[in-house]
């Protein structure tokens, strides 16, 4: 979906770039759009015309799994060019998003402390251990990751992330990057008409771009949002306040929170699960079971599992694992999700895995309708995994 005309929605915490900083960010976005539109399609052509025949000829059978494709595809010159350009586009994107933040960080921090009317709240926990699965590498190539603070009360990781997500999604998640949250809400409205949650939790909220839609849709609900990283929740809280939204942010780990048993009607997460670990994801789902009221529902949005995918598509979706600093991506896409839920106490009959249309999808015909490395908002739909208690 070409959203070239769409710019990011301004809010009180979004850093204002200079003329040239903005031009650099727009180049980063155009570069990504160019890769998706012009370079990426050629990878499929190279596969169909060159690589698949070679695999069939060399191994005696057509490729079935992504692992059949990988050793051959990684040697294809067009794949190499696409990959190299895509990785470089990531680095250019993060650098472009950093510039205005770095220039005026003290100003941004000052701004984050000014809440003329604190509708929501912010609770930090300096004693919280930062999980190793988020520090082994800097996730999705953001320099410093979610956690690195260079000044006290730092918000830089949040400010950089907020802008970078918009560039990364090329506007396809909407002006406020809210598509994932909105898509879950629309899916819930269709599947559970009349659902009125009184208490909602967003796990791994980052800057709150997915959180805000819930409080907009259900303004009477108590909205809680957690993230392990203090600079993220600091920024998220200030962002929500500047938008006039009532959200209670706290620095917590979704593997074990301080909320009461049986206290939430709705627990959601948005592209969180692939950024955890084998052990952590089990703890998170178990924590969801503990926290949900009977009849409550958890919905976790992600990109779809590899099972059942065409070998080439699965291979391409796997790109992020090695090439975009997402070490848990592969494993998270190959989990037995039903078992994950039932091991945590959910009834297998109440577990679901469904596809939800993107709330911002416009011209269906123009979209590739495939998740691909680098076209994060490009699938036209989100994979939803969850269960009712």
């Amino acid at each position, binding site marked *: 979906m070409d959203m070239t005309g769409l710019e990011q929605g301004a809010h009180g915490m979004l850093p204002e770039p200079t*003329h040239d900083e903005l031009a650099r960010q727009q180049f980063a976005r155009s570069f990504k759009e160019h890769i998706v539109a012009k370079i990426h399609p050629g990878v499929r052509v190279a596969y169909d015309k060159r690589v698949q025949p070679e695999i069939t000829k060399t191994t005696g059978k057509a490729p079935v799994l992504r692992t059949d494709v990988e050793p051959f595809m990684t040697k294809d010159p067009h794949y190499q060019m696409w990959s190299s350009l895509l*990785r470089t586009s990531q680095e*250019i994107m993060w650098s472009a998003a950093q510039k205005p933040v770095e220039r005026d960080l*003290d100003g941004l921090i000052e701004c984050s402390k000014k809440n003329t009317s604190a509708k929501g709240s912010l609770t930090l926990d300096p004693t919280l251990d930062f999980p190793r699965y988020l520090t*082994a590498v*800097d996730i999705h190539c*953001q*320099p410093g990751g979610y956690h690195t603070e*260079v000044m006290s009360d730092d918000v830089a990781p949040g400010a950089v992330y907020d802008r970078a997500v918009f560039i990364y999604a090329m506007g396809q998640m909407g002006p406020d990057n809210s598509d994932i949250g909105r898509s879950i809400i629309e899916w819930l409205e269709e599947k559970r008409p009349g659902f009125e949650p009184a208490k909602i939790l967003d796990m791994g909220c980052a800057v709150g771009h997915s959180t805000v839609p819930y409080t907009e849709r259900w303004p009477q609900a108590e909205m809680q949002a957690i993230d392990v990283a203090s600079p993220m929740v600091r920024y998220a809280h200030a962002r929500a306040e500047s938008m006039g939204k009532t959200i209670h942010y706290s620095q917590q780990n979704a593997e074990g929170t301080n909320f009461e048993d049986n206290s939430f009607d709705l627990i959601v997460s948005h592209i969180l699960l692939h950024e955890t670990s084998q052990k952590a994801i089990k703890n998170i789902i178990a924590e969801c079971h503990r926290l949900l009221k009977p009849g409550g529902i958890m919905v976790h949005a992600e990109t779809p599992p590899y099972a059942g995918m065409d070998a080439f598509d699965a291979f391409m979706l796997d790109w992020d694992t090695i090439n975009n600093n997402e070490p848990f991506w592969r494993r998270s896409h190959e989990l037995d999700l039903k078992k994950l839920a039932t091991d945590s106490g959910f009834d297998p009959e109440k577990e679901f895995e469904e596809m939800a249309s993107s709330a911002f999808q416009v011209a269906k015909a123009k979209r590739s309708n495939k998740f691909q490395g680098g076209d994060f908002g490009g699938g036209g739909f989100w994979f939803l995994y969850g269960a009712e208690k």
Partner: protein
Amino acid sequence: MSDNPSLPRKAKGERPFFFDDPDVDKLLAMLMGLAGEVSVMRDRMDTIEHIAAERGLFNATDIESFEPNAEVMQQRADRRQEMLGEITRIVYSEIEGLEGRPEDKHESSYAEAMSLVEQDSK
């Protein structure tokens, strides 16, 4: 320049390389960095043209209808050749080396040159 501390430049984690020769990946990254700078400059020029037009100084039509005279055309052609020469120097300097200079009487490799200067007898 602000007094703020810098943000981290590089993401922690081994950087993958895709071509057989990782230097190709590096060159590609440098090339796209340069493309970014050209893009920024072009956008700034565009802003200048818009402001000039708003203030009645000159506009895009003036730019389109500007007719450089023969002297300006020649200057531009010369400047382009100089620019291209700067960019492609590495390509023809290798050939210059092969051809040698007319005044050179001796062929020598770099190793031979070092050997020459290191010998006590010369």
